[in-house]
C-alpha cells in the first residue's frame, strides 16, 4: 500500500501549465527525491502535497484518505521552504517550539527535543537568536530543524541543504536520513544535487517541464536512464551515436558506430538498424596514454568477445578538480567524451589516449 | 482708498451682504470693503490676537459677546455725529454713551409644531404648565446666546429680576429633560424631526422653515420676546474708523433695514423702515412692538458668565 499517492495532478498559473499529469506513488516510510531542472515544477508539486495549492485536477491521497481538499494543518506534514519562511518575530527556540506546542507536547519534553534537534543541526547556543541575526546557512538549518522536530508523518524538503557547506551537508543528510528511517517518515526531498539524491533516496523522480521523465530507484535511474535528457541530467554522461548491428540476446547488442563496432547493453527489444546513442559514464572509462597502451590511433572498438571496448582519441581539454582531472577527449568520429583521470597524473592537451570501457557499463538510449 | 473689513455670518447673511449690502455701501459711500464671513466668536479671537493691530475696525456680534471685548478695552464709543441714522434708530438699541449699537435684531419667540401641539402656547409659562411639552422642549445650550437670554428671561419671570440666576436655574431644571442645541439650525432640526415640539427660536429660523412648508409656527408670548441683537462696535485698535462709522450708518439705514427684513426676517431697528402687511403678519415684532423686546445689560454679566456656564453644564444634564 502506498502511504502517499499523487494521482494525475495538473496545475496552472493563468495560462501557464505548470504541472502536467503528475503521478507519484510513495510507499510508507520511503524517501523519494524530486530532481529536475530549475523551474520544472518541484516546488509546485510540494506545495500541492502540502495543501498550499489546490491542483486543478487530480487527487492526492495520504494512505487511503483523499486529502486533495484538506487543509494543510490537517495533513500532519513538516515542510522546509525553499525561502525558509522562518517566523521573524520568534527566536530560534520559539520557531522550533511552535509545532510542538501545536501538538501539545509537554514543556519539559519540548525543551529536550528542541535542544536535541539544535544539537543535530549544530546550532547549540543559538536558541535565543532571532532569524535576522543568523547567517544564511544557519537560517536554513533552523528551517530544517523546525520541520524535523515535530516528526511529522510526511516530510517535504525543498532544497533544505542548498546553503550549507559540504561537511554540514554530509552531517545533515545523515541526520535527516537517520531520523526519517527511525521514525518511519515518508519523505519527499527536492534537491538539485544528484549525488545527494543518489545517496539518500529509495526512489528518485526526475521531472522536466512539469512532467515526470522517470521514476525509479537511484541505480535504475543512473544506470538505465529512460532518455538522453535523464542521462544528461543525472550525473555526467557521454554518448556515442550508432545503429544496432546485432542483438545478442538478453540485453546485449552490437552497435555500429563511426569508431567501429561497440558491444553495449540496452533495453530489450531494440531492433536491428535502430538509431541509438551509447551512453557511458565518465567514471567507467579508463584512460591510458596511447603511447603506453600500444594501440594505434584511430583503431579501436570491441576487443572480440571480451565485452571490453577500446576507443582512441586525443585530449582537447583538461580541468583540475582537486580529486580528479576532467579530460575532454575527441574521438575519431568527432564525438567528444568526458573522462576523469587522477588529479596527480594529468594528461596533456593534445596527447593521444585510448579509452576503455566494458559493454555492461554502457546503456543504449533511443535517439 | 479704504480697506475696511466687514465681518458677517454665512448663509443668507453672506448672500445678502455680497449681493445687496456691500454694493449699496460702495455706491453710497465709495468704500470698497472686504467681506469676511465667520461665526462671531472667531472675530473675538482675531481681535484679541491682533493686539494693537486688529484686522477689523468694526465688530459685529451678539451683544453679550461684544460685552466681553468691551470689558477688555478693545472697543471705543462711536461718534454719533458720524452716524446720522442713529437718530432714527429705536433708542433701546443704542448702548449708553454709544458704546455699541445693536443694529440688527432677530426677535426670539416660542416656536412649536403645529401638527404635534394641540394647544398653541401664548406665554412662556406654558413651557412649565402645558403637560404636552413635558420632555419635548428644545433649548439652546449655554454656549449659545439664546441660552443666556432665556436664563435671564426666566430669572425675570420667576425671580427678582434678570440677575436672579438661582431662581432661573431652579425653574429651568424643572424643564428637564430637554434637548439642547448649539445653534438655531439645530433647534430647527429637532423641531423638524419631532424630537422637540416646542422651543424658543428666532423668527428668522422659523420663517425660513415655513417658507419651505414645514408645519411650524412661532408666537410672541404675552410677557414679551427675546432677541438676538447684533451689536456693532468700533474697534479701538482698528485702522479704518471713519469707514467703520460710515458702514454702521449704512447698516442703520431705513431701506437697508427693510431689505434685511425681507431677506431674512429681522425686525428693522430703524423707526422709519416700512414693513408691508404681508411681512408684518408673519413677523409681528416690528415698529412700535419692538418695545416688547427684552433687552438686557450685558456689561455686568461679563463677570459672571464663566461661573454661570459652569453651573449650567453641571446642572442641566
Amino acid at each position: 500500500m502506498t502511504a502517499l499517492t499523487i494521482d494525475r495532478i495538473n496545475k496552472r498559473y493563468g495560462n501557464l501549465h505548470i504541472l502536467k499529469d503528475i503521478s507519484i506513488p510513495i510507499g510508507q516510510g520511503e524517501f523519494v527525491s524530486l530532481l529536475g531542472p530549475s523551474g520544472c515544477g518541484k516546488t509546485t508539486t510540494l506545495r500541492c502535497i502540502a495543501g498550499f495549492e489546490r491542483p486543478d485536477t487530480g487527487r492526492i491521497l495520504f494512505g487511503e484518505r483523499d486529502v486533495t481538499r484538506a487543509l494543510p494543518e490537517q495533513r500532519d506534514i513538516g515542510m522546509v521552504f525553499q525561502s525558509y519562511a522562518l517566523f521573524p518575530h520568534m527566536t530560534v527556540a520559539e520557531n522550533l517550539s511552535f509545532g510542538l506546542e501545536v501538538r501539545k507536547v509537554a514543556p519539559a519534553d519540548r525543551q529536550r527535543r528542541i535542544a536535541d534537534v539544535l544539537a543535530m543541526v549544530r546550532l547549540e547556543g543559538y536558541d535565543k537568536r532571532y532569524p535576522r541575526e543568523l547567517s544564511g546557512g544557519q537560517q536554513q538549518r533552523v528551517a530544517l530543524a523546525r520541520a524535523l522536530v515535530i516528526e511529522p508523518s510526511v516530510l517535504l524538503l525543498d532544497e533544505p541543504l542548498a546553503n550549507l557547506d559540504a561537511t554540514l551537508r554530509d552531517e545533515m543528510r545523515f541526520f535527516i536520513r537517520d531520523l526519517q528511517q527511525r521514525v518511519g517518515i515518508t519523505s519527499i526531498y527536492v534537491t538539485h544535487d544528484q549525488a545527494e539524491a543518489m545517496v539518500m533516496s529509495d526512489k528518485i523522480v526526475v521531472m522536466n517541464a512539469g512532467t515526470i521523465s522517470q521514476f525509479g530507484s537511484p541505480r535504475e535511474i543512473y544506470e538505465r536512464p529512460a532518455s538522453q535528457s535523464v542521462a544528461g541530467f543525472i550525473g555526467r554522461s557521454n554518448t556515442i551515436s550508432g545503429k544496432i548491428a546485432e542483438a545478442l540476446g538478453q540485453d546485449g547488442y552490437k552497435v555500429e558506430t563511426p569508431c567501429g563496432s561497440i558491444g553495449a547493453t540496452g533495453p530489450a527489444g531494440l531492433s536491428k538498424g535502430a538509431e541509438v546513442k551509447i551512453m557511458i559514464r565518465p567514471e567507467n572509462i579508463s584512460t591510458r596514454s596511447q603511447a603506453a597502451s600500444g594501440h594505434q590511433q584511430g583503431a579501436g572498438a570491441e576487443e572480440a568477445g571480451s565485452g571490453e571496448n577500446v576507443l582512441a582519441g586525443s585530449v582537447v581539454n583538461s580541468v583540475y578538480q582537486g580529486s580528479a582531472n576532467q579530460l575532454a577527449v575527441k574521438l575519431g568520429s568527432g564525438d567528444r567524451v568526458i573522462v576523469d583521470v587522477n588529479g596527480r597524473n594529468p594528461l596533456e592537451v593534445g596527447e593521444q589516449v585510448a579509452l576503455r570501457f566494458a559493454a555492461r557499463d554502457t546503456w543504449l538510449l533511443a535517439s | 482708498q479704504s480697506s475696511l473689513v466687514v465681518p458677517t455670518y454665512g448663509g443668507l447673511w453672506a448672500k445678502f451682504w455680497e449681493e445687496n449690502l456691500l454694493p449699496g455701501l460702495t455706491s453710497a459711500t465709495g468704500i470698497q470693503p472686504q467681506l469676511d464671513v465667520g461665526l462671531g466668536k472667531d472675530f473675538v479671537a482675531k481681535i484679541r490676537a491682533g493686539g494693537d493691530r486688529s484686522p477689523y475696525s468694526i465688530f459685529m456680534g451678539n451683544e453679550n459677546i461684544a460685552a466681553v471685548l468691551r470689558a477688555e478695552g478693545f472697543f471705543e464709543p462711536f461718534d454719533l455725529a458720524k452716524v446720522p441714522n442713529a437718530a432714527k434708530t429705536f433708542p433701546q438699541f443704542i448702548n449708553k454713551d454709544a458704546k455699541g449699537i445693536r443694529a440688527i435684531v432677530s426677535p426670539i419667540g416660542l416656536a412649536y409644531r403645529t401638527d404635534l401641539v394641540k394647544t398653541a402656547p401664548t406665554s412662556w409659562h406654558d413651557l412649565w404648565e402645558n403637560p404636552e411639552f413635558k420632555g419635548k422642549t428644545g433649548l439652546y445650550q449655554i454656549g449659545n446666546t439664546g441660552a443666556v437670554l432665556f436664563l435671564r428671561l426666566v430669572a425675570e419671570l420667576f425671580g427678582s429680576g434678570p440677575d436672579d440666576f438661582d431662581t432661573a436655574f431652579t425653574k429651568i431644571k424643572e424643564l428637564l429633560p430637554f434637548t439642547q442645541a448649539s445653534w438655531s439650525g439645530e433647534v430647527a432640526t429637532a423641531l423638524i424631526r419631532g424630537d422637540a415640539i416646542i422651543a424658543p427660536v428666532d423668527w428668522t429660523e422659523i420663517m425660513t422653515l415655513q417658507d419651505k412648508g414645514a408645519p411650524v409656527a412661532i408666537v410672541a408670548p404675552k410677557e414679551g420676546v427675546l432677541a438676538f441683537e447684533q451689536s456693532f462696535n468700533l474697534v479701538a485698535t482698528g485702522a479704518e474708523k471713519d469707514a467703520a462709522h460710515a458702514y454702521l450708518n449704512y447698516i442703520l439705514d431705513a431701506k437697508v433695514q427693510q431689505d434685511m427684513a425681507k431677506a431674512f426676517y429681522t425686525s428693522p431697528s430703524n423707526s422709519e423702515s416700512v414693513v408691508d402687511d404681508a411681512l408684518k403678519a408673519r413677523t409681528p415684532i416690528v415698529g412700535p412692538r419692538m418695545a416688547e423686546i427684552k433687552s438686557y445689560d450685558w456689561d455686568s454679566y461679563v463677570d459672571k458668565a464663566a461661573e454661570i456656564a459652569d453651573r449650567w453644564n453641571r446642572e442641566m444634564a
Partner: protein
Amino acid sequence: MTGATSGVEKTIWDRLFTVLVAAIYIFLMFPIVLVVLLSFNSGEFLAFPLEGFSLRWFEALFSNKRFLDATLYSIQIAATSTIVNAVIGTLAAIYVARHATVARDYIRLIMTAPLLVPEILTAIALLFYFYEIRIGTDYSIGIQIGHIVVTFPYVFLNVSSALFNFDRSQEEAARSLGAGGWMTFRRVTLPAIKPGIITGCLFAFVISFDIFNISLLLKSLGSNTLPLELFDYLRFNFDPTAAAIASLSIFMTFAAILIIDRTVGLRSLRF
C-alpha cells in the same frame, strides 16, 4: 480567522467570516447611502422620509458661487498640505526609523505631538503666534501652515509603519548596482513604502478638508473653507444642498478610483 488561501476548501468559518465582513461594509456604507439618497430627495429638509426624486439640490449647489469658491479653496489648502507633508513627513519618517540615534524618542514625540493636543488650542496658539510674528491672517499662509502642522502626523505615522515592513536588502541591492541615495529612494524605497505614503496622504487630505477650528481662526480675511461655508449655510438653510456636496464628492471619488483601476490598476497603488 480565515481567508481566501488558494488550495483549501471553504469552511463554515469562511462563510461566517464573509458574512461578518459584509456586515461591516454595510455599517460603513449605510450613512453614506443615506446621504446620497437625501441629496436626490425633492423634500425641503435634510430629513426622512424621502418625498421624491429631484436634482434641485445639485442645481442649488452649482448655482452657489460661495460653495464652489469654498470647495476650490479647501482643495487648494488640502492639496498643498498633502504635498508638503508627503515630502517632509516621508523624509522625517525615514530619518527617524533609520538614522536617528540621539534623541530619537524626543524627535518622534514632537513629530506626533500635533495629534495629541486639541485642534482648537493649536488654532488659538497659532493665531496668537501669527500676529506676534506679524504674519497675521491677512493672507492664506497662516491657515496653510496650520493645516500642514495638524496633518503632518498622519503622513509621518503611516510612513513609519510602512518602513517597518520593508526589507532593506533591496536598498542594498540598489546601492550595489551603483544607485545613489536619491535613485535608491525613488526607485526602490518609495515603491515599497508607497502604500504607507498613500494612506498617510489620503488621511492628510481628508483631515485637512474637514478641519474646522483651525480654518475658522486662521483663514485669511474674505476666504472660507468648505466646512466653514457648509456650517454657516446649515445654520441658516437646513436643506439637502449639503448632502448634494457630499454625494458629489462620493461620485468623484468613485470615478477616480475606477479610472485608476482601469488604467494603471489599483494594485499598483497598493493602498
